[in-house]
């Protein structure tokens, strides 16, 4: 009897984690499309690292470890980091990549300083740097999954409301500006949506791997279609798929961390897509080349 109840309990925990990972994959997959299409794939990496000082400051100010407060701190810091990146690029001749690298590493370093400060005050079992770096999907609770669902849902709804504007911003920002769309505001809106997706993911996969959750599903989806609508939909599905399969695989053996497994699953999806996607895929490309060669040969023979 006791065995049965632990089994059910185990399955229930696993289910919660899987649902959380799936939700997360959906949200970050869908929003990641915009980052990838705008060639800002690594913005996610910067935001997730830049969030650390925000978490530390939120903890220092409130002394609480309520996830929502820490998430808010993380979001504000990530958002400020992005604004700094944007203004460096706009006001100096430093290019996007360097601006990103500076903000990413120095914000993180500042977070580290604050973290050691917290550690020194003897506040045992503090904000958990390891959790921030690698995530702890296995500790996701119903409450966390609910937070991911609600905030992620809001982010997706906002994305749908501004679908047309965001699409224009991604594909032809100059045109968008010329017909009077406020592109700076839209840019900030899009970044804010990304920030939401990222801080939600921090707990599950951690700062280092969060960027993969944004990039991988979107890159995979890109191979299958040329339409934004389909790409976002596919990326959301791929993200969810990676989340669920990663969770299940990591649960089959002991000591396989969930976050990295999810990332590897997403990477496999990318590999398969790049190889086998119709029209764009590498296999397809090879077949087409061979067919062309054969046709050309046949045509030459006929000419002779």
């Amino acid at each position, binding site marked *: 009897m006791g065995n049965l109840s632990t089994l059910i309990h185990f399955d229930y925990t696993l289910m919660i984690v899987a649902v959380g990972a799936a939700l997360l994959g959906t949200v970050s997959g869908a929003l990641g499309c915009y980052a990838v299409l705008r*060639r800002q794939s690594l913005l996610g990496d910067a935001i997730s690292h830049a969030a650390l000082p925000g978490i530390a400051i939120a903890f220092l100010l409130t002394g609480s470890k309520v996830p929502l407060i820490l998430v808010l701190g993380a979001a504000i810091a990530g958002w400020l980091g992005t604004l700094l990146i944007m203004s460096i690029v706009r006001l100096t001749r430093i290019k996007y990549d*360097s601006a990103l690298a*500076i903000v990413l590493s120095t914000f993180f370093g500042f977070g580290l300083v604050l973290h050691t400060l917290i550690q020194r005050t003897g506040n045992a079992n503090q904000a958990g740097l390891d959790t921030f*770096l690698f995530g702890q999907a296995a500790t996701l609770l119903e409450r966390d999954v609910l937070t991911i669902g609600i905030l992620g849902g809001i982010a997706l709804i906002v994305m749908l409301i501004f679908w047309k504007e965001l699409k224009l911003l991604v594909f032809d920002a100059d045109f968008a500006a010329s017909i009077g769309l406020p592109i700076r505001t839209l840019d900030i809106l899009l970044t804010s949506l990304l920030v939401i997706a990222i801080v939600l993911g921090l707990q599950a996969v951690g700062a280092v791997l969060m960027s*993969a959750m944004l990039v991988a599903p979107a*890159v995979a989806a890109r191979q299958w279609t040329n339409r934004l609508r389909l790409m976002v939909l596919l990326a959301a599905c791929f993200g969810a798929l990676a989340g669920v399969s990663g969770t299940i695989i990591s649960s089959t053996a002991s000591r*396989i*961390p969930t976050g990295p497994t999810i990332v590897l699953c997403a990477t496999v999806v990318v590999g398969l897509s790049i190889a086998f996607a119709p029209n764009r895929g590498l296999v397809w490309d090879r077949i087409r080349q061979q067919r062309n060669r054969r046709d050309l040969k046949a045509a030459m023979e006929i000419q002779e």
Partner: protein
Amino acid sequence: MIQNHLDILLIAIVTAAACALPGVFLVLRRMTLMSDAISHAILPGIVLAFFLTESLSSPLLILAAAGTGVLTVVFVELLERTKLVKEDAAIGLTFPALFSIGVILISRFAGNVHLDMDAVLLGELAYAPLNRLKAFGYDLGPVSLYVMGTILLLNLAFILLFYKELKLVTFDASLAAALGFTPTLIHYGLMTLVSVTTVGAFDAVGSILVVALIAGPPATAYLMTDKLSRMLVLSALIGSVNAIGGYWLASLFDVSIAGAIATMTLLIFVLVFLIVPNRGLIAIARRHARQKWEFAQTMLVIHLFNHEGLPEAETESAIADLHEHLSWDPGFTSQVVKYALNNRCVSRKETQLILTSHGRTIAQQALVQ
């Protein structure tokens, strides 16, 4: 104890200088994020080599990890070459995947070896002097000082030997190719250097903060100069200043040294961003402000000049009514008048404003233009 402090400071300075040198070329070639990718992706290389050697500072480990770094660059370029993935996305795909493999390897097998994840990612400069090089019973100093010193010399030698080639490849890759300089070779040489430097430095500052050392000082120097040679020297200097300042900060508040160096990097960068002559934010703001007053003054003298000597001049140049003629705000108008009076473009004659010869020249010049 003082010896210990000095050791740490020396290691920090040497590491910062060693990272800043190749960083200059990464910043100029828009490849800074490659250092981020390399520093994360070397993890599986470090782990595998660590399983073999069981030591974090063995040369084999550094070689294996540096090899993984170069492999990362190859992966990213292969992905890019399929034309299915853009460069940024290729980087964003490659390093998390490799890093994940490293993390899984560690948590799966590292139960019986001593490889601390935090040490790899965050480093701990304070422990760096503990591992000392000993020969014939003499203490020759910390091992990491020798490792980083060698890497610094290596970087210096590479840059000095291939300065011309690096410069050409950085600023005009196609010309370099046309002249037969094989940009690919130089590119991979540079990437190998970055990998070796990153691996050497991660021991001291960890793999995330290496990025601050590689990107921070060169970007700061880039704001200050237009000359490559000056930028190289400045970067190394700024890197050292950041290291010293960071160490001071860390001992003041008793916090992570690497983190404090990164914080210092941000502070110095923002400071330079604000105050550097010509390109800084303050300089830009002042230029804008000056241009605004200059423009208003020019408008004023043109207005006076247009009506000079004509019957309506008396009403048109009455100080009290000027704002109506120029359709300006009265407060703004009086400020402009004051500005023009200070510059001796106009002078006051009872209730009127009349042009000086200097003001007349300005108006004439502005009208001719």
